[in-house]
C-alpha cells in the first residue's frame, strides 16, 4: 500500500503545464485521426448494420426536426424583414427574393442546421456512447465479440452524414417559405415570381457547395460525438464532459470547415 502514498506528485510548474497541454493537444489530434482512419477501415466491411443505420437516421431527424423547423422559418421571416429597409432606400425591394435565397441557400441553411444538430444530435451521441462506456456496455460488446465500433460508431456517423444534408435542404425550404410569406404579405409578390427571382442568381455550384458543406458538417458532428462518447473517461462526470465536448468541438470545427469550403468553392466559380 505504501507505494501509493509515496508517489503523490508535486504541483507542476507553469512551464511543465504548458508543455503538457501542448503534448496532450497533439496526442488528441493523433487519436482523433486514428479514430477517423478506423471508421473508414471498418465502415466498408460487412455486415453493414443496415437496420441500425436507418434507426439512427430516424433518431437524428427526429431529434432536430422541431427546432430546425422553427428556426428555419424564423430566420426566413426575420432576414427578409430586416433586409427590407435598406433595399427600400434604393427602391430595390424587387431584389428581396434573390437576396433571401442567396443568404439562405449559400450560407444560412447548412450552417444553422449544423449548429442545431451539433447541439441536439452531437450532444446526445456523446452522452449516449459516454454512458455506455462508463457503464461498461461497450466493454461488454467487445468481450462478446460483437464489434461495438461498427455497431455504435459507424452507424451513427453514416446516419449524421446522410441525414444532415437532408435536414439542411429542409431548413432551406422552410426559410424560403418564411421569406416568401413575408414578401407576399408586404410586396404582394406571387408564388411563381418569387421562385423565379429566388433561384435566378443561384448556380449549380452553389447548390453543390452547400450540400457538400452539409455532408462535411454531418460527418464532423457524427465523428466528434462518437469520439467523445467512445473515449469518455470513467465516472459520471465523464458523460457530461463527453456531451459537452461533442457540442463545443463540433461547433468549432463546423465554423472552420465553413470558411475552408467557401474558399474552395470560390475556386470553381
Amino acid at each position, binding site marked *: 500500500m505504501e507505494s*501509493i502514498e509515496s508517489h503523490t506528485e508535486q504541483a507542476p510548474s507553469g512551464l511543465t503545464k504548458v508543455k503538457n497541454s501542448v503534448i496532450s493537444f497533439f496526442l488528441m489530434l493523433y487519436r482523433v485521426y486514428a479514430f477517423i482512419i478506423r471508421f473508414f477501415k471498418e465502415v466498408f466491411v460487412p455486415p453493414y448494420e443496415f437496420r441500425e443505420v436507418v434507426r439512427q437516421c430516424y433518431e437524428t431527424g427526429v431529434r432536430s426536426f422541431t427546432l430546425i423547423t422553427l428556426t428555419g422559418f424564423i430566420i426566413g421571416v426575420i432576414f427578409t424583414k430586416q433586409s427590407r429597409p435598406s433595399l427600400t432606400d434604393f427602391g430595390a425591394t424587387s431584389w428581396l427574393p434573390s437576396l433571401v435565397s442567396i443568404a439562405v441557400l449559400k450560407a444560412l441553411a447548412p450552417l444553422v442546421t449544423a449548429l442545431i444538430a451539433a447541439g441536439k444530435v452531437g450532444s446526445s451521441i456523446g452522452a449516449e456512447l459516454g454512458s455506455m462506456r462508463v457503464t461498461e*456496455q461497450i*466493454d*461488454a*460488446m467487445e*468481450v*462478446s465479440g*460483437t*464489434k461495438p465500433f461498427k455497431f455504435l460508431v459507424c452507424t451513427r456517423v453514416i446516419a449524421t452524414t446522410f441525414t444532415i444534408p437532408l435536414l439542411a435542404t429542409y431548413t432551406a425550404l422552410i426559410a424560403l417559405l418564411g421569406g416568401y410569406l413575408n414578401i407576399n404579405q408586404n410586396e404582394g409578390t406571387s408564388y411563381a415570381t418569387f421562385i423565379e427571382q429566388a433561384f435566378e442568381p443561384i448556380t449549380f455550384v452553389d447548390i453543390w457547395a452547400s450540400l457538400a458543406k452539409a455532408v462535411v458538417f454531418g460527418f464532423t458532428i457524427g465523428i466528434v460525438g462518437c469520439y467523445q462518447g467512445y473515449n469518455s473517461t470513467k465516472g459520471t462526470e465523464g458523460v457530461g464532459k463527453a456531451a459537452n465536448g461533442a457540442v463545443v468541438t463540433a461547433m468549432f470545427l463546423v465554423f472552420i470547415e465553413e470558411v475552408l469550403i467557401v474558399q474552395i468553392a470560390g475556386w470553381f466559380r
Partner: protein
Amino acid sequence: MEKQKANIDFNNEVIRIRGLQKSFGDYHVLRGIDLDLYQGENLVVLGRSGTGKSVLIKLISGMLYPDAGTINVLGNELTTITEKEMEALRIRIGFSFQNSALYDSMTVRKNLEFPLVRNRKGITRKEIDNAVHKVLDAVSLSQTINQMPSELSGGQRKRIGIARTLILNPEIMLYDEPTAGLDPITCIEINELINEVQQSYNTSSIIITHDLTCAKMVGDRVAMLLDGQFQRVGTFDEVFATDDARVKPFYDYNFIE
C-alpha cells in the same frame, strides 16, 4: 446448500498465467501473478477493494494488455495472439460484469439475442428463440423477457448479465463480484446459479468476490490477492488456516459473532 462435487481435470489447465504484471502510471497493481485454472473448476479470487481483481480478469479477457508475463487461455498465448484469433477466443469466454453492463436501450430479449445474432451467421429465428428461452430458464427469469433493464432489480440484472454470456456456450466464465450489493438471500441464489452453470454448462470459472459466503459456497479453490500477488491458494479452509495479519481480518470481519 452444499456444493455438489465438481468434475475437475487437474491435468488440463484452461488458463495458465505466469509472472503477470500490470501498472497504471506509477501504481503497480499486479506484481507477478501466477495462476492456473483447471478444466471444470470454480476458482474464487478474494482481495480487498482496489487490489486489482477486476484488472486481472480484464487482462484474461483481453480488455487490457499486460506489461510483463504470459497469459495462456485455452491454448492461446494472449501476448502474441492476432486480432482474428482474439475475436474467435472471446466468444469462448463469458464475462459477467461487476455492474451487469446490460444494454439499457434494449429489452432483455434483445440483450440476449445481441451476441448470438452477431456471432452465429445464418442462425434461424427459431434457433434464436430457443437459445433465448433456454438461458432465461437457466437463470429462472423467463417472465422478464420483454422488460427493459431499468425495470429489473439488481439481482435480476446480474442474472440476465450471466444469461447473456451463457447464450454463447462459453467454456470459461469470469464473474466480477457477482454478489456485490445484493441481499443475503439473493446472494445465495446467485451462488447456486454459479454452481448450476458449472455443472450444466461444464464451465471453468474465476469468481471474484469479497463475500466469504460466496467463496465458501462456490469455490473449489480460493486464491487470496494481496499486494499484487497471490499469497495463499488452496481450499477455503486451507487459505484461512493462518495467522497472517493480512488474511485473518478478512475472515474475522466477515463472520462477526
